[in-house]
């Protein structure tokens, strides 16, 4: 018997990240913190982003290595099709059940 697939869970922070990425385009971690108006925290944003990548909600790419010597390449994040569908499904459920939104 094949194992039954689980419905993906979406925390409030993950939903906020997906909404920001959908609205603002590709962003790196500190840009997400700034765009969230402090609702996302610098100390935990990267853990959240890592978890979302594992769930398949977002994907990331490293920018080209910076010209300055010893500079590190930033990682930019983009929502995946699954991530967009999960937010849409969540919004749909929230409209049907506003008390749980």
């Amino acid at each position, binding site marked *: 018997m094949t194992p039954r697939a*689980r*419905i*993906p*869970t979406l*925390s*409030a922070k993950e939903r906020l990240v997906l909404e920001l990425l959908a609205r603002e385009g590709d962003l*790196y*971690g*500190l840009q997400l913190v700034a765009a969230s108006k402090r609702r996302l*925290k*610098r*100390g*935990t944003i*990267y*853990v959240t*982003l*890592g*978890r979302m*990548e*594992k*769930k398949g909600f977002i994907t*990331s790419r490293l920018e080209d290595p*910076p010209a*300055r010597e*010893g*500079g*590190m*390449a*930033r*990682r930019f994040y983009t929502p995946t099709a699954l991530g967009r569908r999960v937010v849409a499904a969540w919004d749909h459920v929230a409209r049907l059940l506003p*008390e749980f939104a």
Partner: protein
Amino acid sequence: MTARGFVAVVRAIAARLCDSATMEHVIEPTLADFDFEADEAARRGQRARCCWLHVALAVSIVRAVVASTLDRVVDQTIPLAAADERQTLRAMMITAGVATAVAVVLLWLPTLGRFDWLLGLYLVPMTIPIALPVGLTVGILAGMRGAHPSHAIVVRLLAMAMLATIVSFATLGWIVPESNQAFRQRAWEQVARVNGFEIRPLARGVNELKWIDLRERVRTSSLDGIHDPAAAFAYYQMWTLPLATLILALFAAAVARRWRVRAAIGSVAAITTLFAHYSLIFAGRQAAMDGALGPATAAWLPDLCVVAGAIAIELTARRKPA
């Protein structure tokens, strides 16, 4: 140290603490973003912002390492999508961490300045009835992280609280009196040796009497018409203090079910509740000693107040419009 050197040092420390996946997806992006922003600030001549960014980087890395470790432990134990299990495990881990921290502080304070392993060991049982309710209350309120706990989570957490209550009751009723007495005797012998006093066995106070002995003393005092509020209060407290673990957990669960409590607010709410509860215990004890309240009423008052609070929250939650 240059800005780049600082980043390199932080990276090297993190590499010793974290696995390659955490380095790639958590630490490296953190360092790269801060490095970029600090570079921009330095280019614009904003030295203060540059310094502040380095402090923020160090704090962020520490928080990221802690959060990532916690997440990894939860992930390894429980499948990613099992949200209930994750919430329960997180609450249990916070409970264990906070209870241990409280126990360490309680052990450290009385032995301050004269470190003695055996004295510390005798104090361990005394910390259990205090550390468990504190840990559970903070664990439940801080562990939900802004989500309402499901019915299954509440049942599991309350089962845990029930177990903690039983452990606490057994410890307080049978182990604490013996360890308290051993602590007093050893501390007294140390003082007596230094001052050349005669070493003799100390008489037991009310806090050194086992549950059965204390019940007998209260019963005998009552039959003889002797007013002994200290013993009576200590006897009732052997019931109310362990029960506080379950009652405070019930209260915390009611709060978490009623409001979406974020970790920081949850911690503050838990500390406020615990402070109010322990203040009522001390006030009740004083009132019992002064004769303003009966020992039973004074001992039960803090727990009853918390129960009333939990019921009030549950009732308002049910009245919430759909």
